[in-house]
């Protein structure tokens, strides 16, 4: 079996208990919130006491907590997330509708922070300890201290209210009738500010990781060898130092996906983008707990999926992973999972 498949299978196996725990957690939160799926359904469709009794029995809600949990799991296994009161529609449908917008926003913001962050990281890491390095490090720290929603508001005040260069909010011009490229350009114009607000915050993470990894790489023997061979400094920085510092950036990509999903809640609210984050805020505002927990479950699955892809990319970039067991354990430790005997001194 190719090592990518072995890795994939192992990661999927550890993901199952984790996901199960998340589901049990959301079930208890649902229980704590009070009101069940029948209350939700009746609230949006209407019905008499007889129907309520009948539905409760039919959906197994008149049974013990254990049986209800089993029913909840059974429904989830069929990708049934339940019924949303505020939308009077199945939760799965509502989420599926909003998910692409959030993915577009997150993808663009990640590209921005990864691209710009690693580029600035190379500038800073080219001469660790220099004035330029210190300025960039402190500057990125200041940017990392900015709350995303506030940055969004400030950008709105400058570029949408004062300068009127960019649209104030929304995903696209309503009822503009645009299609094809014109529509894509319209959406892109609307996304500039939210992507900037979300992307600039996380830029610091990439910058600092890149810088730290480069500072580490400067100490390696192959850099000394490259210097001895009389290579141009620019070539050493880009080919020898920066390239070897790229690997940790891939890990950050996975780690910050959960944070960015959380950050998209406020950004989408500020810019009225109909995505998963704004849906979460709407669910809170309309006290639609099953919808909110559905969003949490989908986010958890999304985070697991993103990390799975990151792991595979990592394995592809670093051929040592998945080959000999010693190295593999090192890898598993790094990504937070522990092999049977690793980590304990002999």
């Amino acid at each position, binding site marked *: 079996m190719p090592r990518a498949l072995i890795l994939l299978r192992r990661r999927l196996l*550890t993901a199952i*208990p*984790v*996901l199960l*725990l*998340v589901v049990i*957690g959301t079930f208890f*939160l649902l229980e*704590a*919130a009070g009101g069940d799926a029948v209350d939700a359904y009746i609230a949006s469709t209407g019905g008499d006491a007889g129907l309520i009794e009948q539905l409760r029995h039919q959906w197994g809600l008149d049974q013990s907590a254990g049986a209800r949990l089993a029913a909840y799991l059974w429904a989830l296994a069929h990708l049934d997330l339940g019924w949303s009161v505020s939308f009077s529609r199945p939760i799965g449908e509502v989420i599926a509708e909003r998910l692409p917008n959030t993915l577009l926003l997150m993808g663009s913001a990640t590209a921005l922070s990864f691209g710009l962050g690693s580029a600035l990281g190379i500038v800073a890491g080219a001469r660790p300890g220099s004035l330029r390095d210190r300025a960039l490090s*402190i500057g990125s*720290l*200041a940017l*990392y*201290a*900015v*709350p*995303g*929603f*506030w940055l969004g*508001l*400030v950008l*709105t*005040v400058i570029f949408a*209210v004062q300068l009127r260069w960019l649209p104030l909010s929304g995903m696209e011009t309503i009822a503009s009738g645009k299609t094809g490229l014109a529509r894509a350009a319209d959406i892109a114009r609307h996304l500039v500010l939210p992507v900037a607000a979300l992307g600039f915050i996380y830029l610091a993470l990439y910058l600092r990781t890149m810088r730290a990894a480069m500072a580490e790489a400067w100490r390696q023997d192959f850099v000394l060898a490259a210097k001895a061979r009389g290579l141009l400094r620019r070539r050493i920085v880009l080919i020898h130092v920066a390239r070897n510092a790229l690997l940790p950036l891939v890990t950050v990509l996975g780690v910050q996906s*959960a*944070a960015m*999903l*959380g*950050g998209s*809640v*406020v950004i989408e*609210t*500020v810019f009225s983008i109909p995505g998963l984050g704004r849906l*979460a*805020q709407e669910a*809170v*505002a309309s*006290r639609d*707990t099953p919808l*909110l*927990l559905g*969003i*949490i479950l989908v*986010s*958890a699955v999304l*985070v*697991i999926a993103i990390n799975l892809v990151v792991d595979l990319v990592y394995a592809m970039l670093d051929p040592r992973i998945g080959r000999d067991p010693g190295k593999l354990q090192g890898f598993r430790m790094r990504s*937070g999972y*522990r092999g049977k005997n690793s*980590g*304990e*001194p002999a």
Partner: protein
Amino acid sequence: MNTLRRFFATPEGAAGAAILGMLVLIALFAPLLFPQDPLSIAGPPLLHPFTDWSLPLGTDRLGRDVLAGIVHGARTSLAVALAAALASIVVGATVGTIASFAGGLVDEALMRLVDAFQTVPGFLLALAFVSIVGPSLAVVVVAIALSAWTGPARIARAEVLSIRERDYVAAARVIGMRPSEIAFREILPNALPPVLALSAIIVASAILIEAALSFLGLGDPNRVTWGGMIAEGRTVLRSAPYLSIIPGIALVLAVLGVYLAGEGIVEATAARRGYT
């Protein structure tokens, strides 16, 4: 003592300590500086900053003093962040110690629990928890700690794993100390420093999460919060952008102060270990 001096010698540490020191003073003396309820009306509505020196930062839509709001907001922000960080470090360090000390199935189960909490976006979890239990200061603290305890748990576990094989632990076992006694009296105190190094990041993210929750209307409704002030100001963003911008600057300063102090601590302790 030497580490402390080195901390103040780094530019980051000095700047961070200055910002934080000022904020803590403001937060502590808020009731003396502005004895009036910051939610009460102090002057005409929408007074712009620097126009009336009795209300230097102006007033909001309802005529409430912005400066009084900022000062009292510092109290809420710092109290929530410190309480949340303390709770997550205590819970995380305890769970991590138990996991690595018990080993086996207990360890496996606890670490999967940590994985599960790290898989759910922390802000969404906090959002769900506050919206279900209802907003109050204590609930916001718990909500933030819910997602923040996993970092300390992981580090404490790794740290304890390496410490538990040391000679002095073996000695403690030989003199007949109970395992729980060894874990919490011999090992945990020695495993704490790396966990505490994480505290700056936890406090900073706690300030940001509290602000975002208040911005979405899930803060304690009876208290002034910077996030709540920004949300208030947002309704008049076109005519009075200063109402959103001023509390945001306070937020950035507070978080930056924490980060800088954290940098200073890392540099000061790294110098001690000779890693410069």
